[in-house]
């Protein structure tokens, strides 16, 4: 099932990435040649290409797995690769950032961003199509960067040494899909909402102070930037959006909840 595993060094860590086809295996070694190492490493990420086998739809989904968890699901091979880069970049050392680095899943709709619980990622296999139908794009990132001053979600290009010319051969590995679902482009997306899982699971608008309280635990760099900057930044964000609590028991409820959360923002279209 696996054509090979390569070891890439990022931030001093040796990370194994295995691919399901020889072409993808070679592509990744070229793409990330600057990070390639000879030492073997257990596969941490798995790139599984969906190839037409004549029994299903023409466009099969490709998956990026982190351990056993699917973190990217797409028909678009470029998006899959960019998702891998984004995940690998999490291990790169980072200078002091003015951003809040937040645990969560980001969705972009009509150019505006909704922060959703990270648990949504584990549901993407069954809800991403529904989300796409409602106009949402999923940001393929292991965590989110929020600029509290600008009130935006910041999608960054991966801080890796990448041979971008390698993308020229990507179409030769798998043809472009008839229905592309490209990656969310790097940039700053105004925040329109923040959906939070609360202990009581009660859906609906949250008092902003409660939202700041629950969100504080999601700020991964709160110890680096300090408690006061964490609270100030979260308060700035929550003043811009209407935070909502979400809970769901099936995919329909989840999609409806996220749609409502995105619509709760003051400027949501």
């Amino acid at each position, binding site marked *: 099932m696996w054509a090979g595993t390569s070891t890439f060094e990022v931030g001093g*860590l040796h990370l194994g990435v295995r691919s399901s086809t020889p072409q993808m295996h070679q592509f990744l070694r070229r793409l990330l040649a600057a990070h390639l190492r000879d030492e073997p490493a257990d596969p941490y*990420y798995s790139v599984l290409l969906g190839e037409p086998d004549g029994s299903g739809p023409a466009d099969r989904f490709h998956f990026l797995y982190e351990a056993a968890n699917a973190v990217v699901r797409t028909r678009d091979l470029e998006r899959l690769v960019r998702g891998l880069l984004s995940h690998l970049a999490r291990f790169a050392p980072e200078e002091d950032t003015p951003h809040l680095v937040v645990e969560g899943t980001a969705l972009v709709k009509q150019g505006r961003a909704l922060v959703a619980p990270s648990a949504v990622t584990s549901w993407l296999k069954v809800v991403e199509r529904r989300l796409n139908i409602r106009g949402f794009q999923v940001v393929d990132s292991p965590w989110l960067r929020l600029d509290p001053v600008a009130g935006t979600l910041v999608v960054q290009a991966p801080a890796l040494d990448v041979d971008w010319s390698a993308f020229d051969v990507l179409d030769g590995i798998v043809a472009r899909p008839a229905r592309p679902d490209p990656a969310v482009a790097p940039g700053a997306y105004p925040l329109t909402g923040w959906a939070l899982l609360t202990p009581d699971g009660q859906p609906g608008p949250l008092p902003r102070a409660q939202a*700041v*309280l629950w969100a504080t635990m999601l700020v991964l760099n709160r110890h680096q930037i*300090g408690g006061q900057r964490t*609270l*100030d930044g979260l308060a700035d964000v929550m003043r811009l959006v209407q935070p909502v609590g979400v809970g769901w028991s099936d995919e329909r409820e989840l999609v409806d909840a996220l749609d409502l959360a995105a619509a709760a923002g003051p400027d949501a279209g």
Partner: protein
Amino acid sequence: MSTLDGAGPDALDLAPGEIDDSFVLARLPSVATVEIDGESVLFDGASGSLHVLDPVGAIVWSCLDGAATLDELTTDLSDAFGAEPAQVRADVVELARDLFGRGLVHALAGGAGGAWAEPAPLSSVSPDEATGADVAIDADVEEPRFLERPASL
């Protein structure tokens, strides 16, 4: 009384219930605060605990500057809001005890010249004892882990 960075050798061994309106309370420097929609969120970076104070609690919290006794604070709040002093005093003292019990403030007995008391360790406060704040979480959140682990599809 000029420094609030620890109780020092003269610290009182104080139970929250012993605090009365003669005490002076001061917010701990490790506790970050933000006010939003009239409520205050408190984040104690030392313990990781989080709390929300309702609007009245937020006002009291903002007044705990290590200068005024709770009695003086009661007078000011009663005047400002036209409230019954006895009720304000009871509410202020109850909240002060709660904040002290949660490890968020220093307490100084008998005003200037007394000794600062260390707040009680947070773990010694049971949820039943802590009633003044709306929400309290003893957040002990794991940092993200970057360890390699084997993929297992």
